[in-house]
């Protein structure tokens, strides 16, 4: 899957949890999911499970620790997709 398609899917999944709409408008690979988009950290697990469902992959707890930015999520998902 193209990285741009993964990026599009990630942003689509994040959108319902985003509290900073301005940051969402300017979202990029460097955008921090918690600090910039203001996604509630307690909801990160739901976001990750949505990634699993959308891309048909399995993400470990340890992997979640590596996801800080949108780019981190795209990279992780791309790796899982092979």
């Amino acid at each position, binding site marked *: 899957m193209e990285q741009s398609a993964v990026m599009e899917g990630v942003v689509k999944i994040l959108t319902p949890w985003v509290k900073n709409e301005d940051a969402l408008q300017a979202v990029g690979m460097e955008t921090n999911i*918690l600090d910039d988009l203001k996604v509630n*950290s*307690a909801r*990160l*697990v*739901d976001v*990750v*499970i949505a990634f*699993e469902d959308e891309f048909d992959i*399995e*993400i*470990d*707890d340890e992997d*979640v*620790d590596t996801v*800080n930015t949108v780019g981190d999520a795209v990279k992780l998902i791309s790796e899982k997709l092979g």
Partner: protein
Amino acid sequence: MPRRHRSQRAVGWLLAPFWFPLASLFLRLRFGCRIEDISRSRALYHKIRSESDLPLLICANHLTLVDSFFIAQALAPNWRFLLDFDSVPWNTPEEVNFANTPFNHALVYIAKCVPIRRGGKREDIREVLSRIEYLLGRGEVAILFPEGGRSRTGRIDPDNAGWGVGRVIARVKDCRVLCVYMRGDAQETFGTYPKHGDRLRVSMALIEPKSDARGVRKTRDLSAQIMSQLAQMEADYFATRAGPSHAVAGS
């Protein structure tokens, strides 16, 4: 980590004959709260600790800044904590509230606390939870508030729970969870402290969360089971609030 833990535990134990009574006296004079049927909750905790050496994590609702102190009082008298220092739960107080000065930092150090910053860096939170996992794995007791902070609604909200607790349980083999619901009769919503002279009611339920799921789904499942238990205990509390105190054990 083992060395750091041993040092903190040793200092806390050596000073316990001094800080236990001082803490109890402070709670009595400052808040004047009475824990209803305290002998029953203490007997239950003693029974749970005596019957098994398996890891025990205490998960409680969270309404005031001093909940963990009163929960500790509800678990055992000071003399029993002195005889079995491992039964004193390790606690993770909010760093901004309790470890904001060198003096407070020293206090939480001797009181078996590992400060955590709510909303802090994830790697810092991860380190604290890793330490809790380590402590549980070696037979000590720890207390975590699954909601991650005081409930802003004053009620258990299963849909707004953190998932750190589930992650800890998933990583600690055979971890049991002692769910504790504590609430003062005058405690309508969350607050800084309980109302002076309030009557605190405590209920307990021992559960063993299980999940066949993997990865983050397992983490979420385990957290949800605890939140569900606490929500049920809250429902029971309000259903019986007008009646006598209750302290129950589940399995």
